[in-house]
Each structure stands twice: as structure tokens, then as C-alpha cells.
């Protein structure tokens, strides 16, 4: 059976992933401003989503049993992030670390629950 690629993977490529990598202090300052804006502006959050979605997916794919599970969990991570963003403060943790920590915890929760269900 042919697998259907999740929509966000159809739109993005490794090229866009490379462009999203923060490499300078200016990039970092711009991202801090974008994150601040995203707390109240859905368009800014959308930019963050597109900047990180593929990297989050690839990370979660390593911890998921299938492409589909990783794609579902990726969407869940961004819902959690949108929900938690108003409380996020840059001085405690860089945004990328904060987002990947959410992804890590979500994967741990999801697959711990699954193991319990199986056993």
C-alpha cells in the first residue's frame, strides 16, 4: 500500500530546513522577537511552525513506530506549544530547546501509555 505523506512534509524540503537553522546572533534576536510576537499573533506562530515542523517530525520519527504516528505526534506537539507559549520565557531556555523538550515529553508520554496499553 502506498503511504501518503503528511501535508507538512509535502510542502517542505531539506532546503527549507537548512534555511531555518539559526546561525548568527542577529537570527537569534529576530527569533526572540518572533516568539514574543507569536504569543498574540497567529501569523507569527505559523512562521515558527514552518521553521520547526520538519525538524520536530524527524526527531519524533526516531521515537515513533511509524511515519503516521510521528506526523500525528508532531501536530500534537504544536498544539501543546501554542497552548503553553504565553507562559514561555526566553531567559530560562532558548525557544528551540523549549520546543524540543515539549516534543521529548510528548513522545515519552505517548509511548509509555502505549506500552501500558499493550501489556
Amino acid at each position, binding site marked *: 500500500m502506498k503511504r501518503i505523506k503528511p501535508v507538512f512534509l509535502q510542502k517542505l524540503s531539506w532546503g527549507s530546513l537548512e534555511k531555518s*537553522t539559526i546561525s548568527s546572533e542577529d537570527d537569534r534576536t529576530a527569533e526572540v522577537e518572533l516568539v514574543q510576537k507569536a504569543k498574540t499573533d497567529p501569523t507569527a506562530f505559523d512562521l515558527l511552525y514552518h521553521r520547526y515542523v520538519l525538524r520536530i517530525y524527524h526527531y519524533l520519527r*526516531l*521515537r515513533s513506530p511509524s511515519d503516521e504516528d510521528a506526523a500525528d505526534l508532531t501536530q500534537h506537539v504544536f498544539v501543546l506549544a501554542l497552548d503553553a507559549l504565553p507562559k514561555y520565557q526566553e531567559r530560562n*531556555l*532558548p525557544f*528551540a530547546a*523549549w520546543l*524540543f*523538550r515539549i516534543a521529548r515529553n510528548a513522545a515519552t508520554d505517548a509511548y509509555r501509555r502505549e506500552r501500558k496499553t499493550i501489556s
Partner: protein
Amino acid sequence: MQLRALLAKFNEDKKELLALRFAVGLSIGEIAGVVCKNEAAVRKQLARIIADLKQQYEEQYQ
């Protein structure tokens, strides 16, 4: 492919560190934030993992 076979033998924590560093491209500082450890510990652990990988590769394939 040879590298993939060696990586498969690593435990989940080690694979996760390698993934965050090389597949995702996070900095050491960012990884430290993700896994709730300090930067020095992450740097040391990654160096050890890479050294292990190199040694195993050389033993098996050279």
C-alpha cells in the same frame, strides 16, 4: 549502512543525543536544555559516544 548497523546497538539515550545534535542540528546548549543536563555533561557524553562509534567502526570494518 554500516554506520546504521552500529548505531542500532546504541541505547535510546545515546541515539537521542546523536539525533538532536546531527539530525536536528541543535547546539550543545540547546540540547542541554532539552535533556535537562548541563552543557559540559552533554559535550562530554557526545564526545564519548562519537569516540565509541569510531572505535567500533574501525574494529568491524577496517
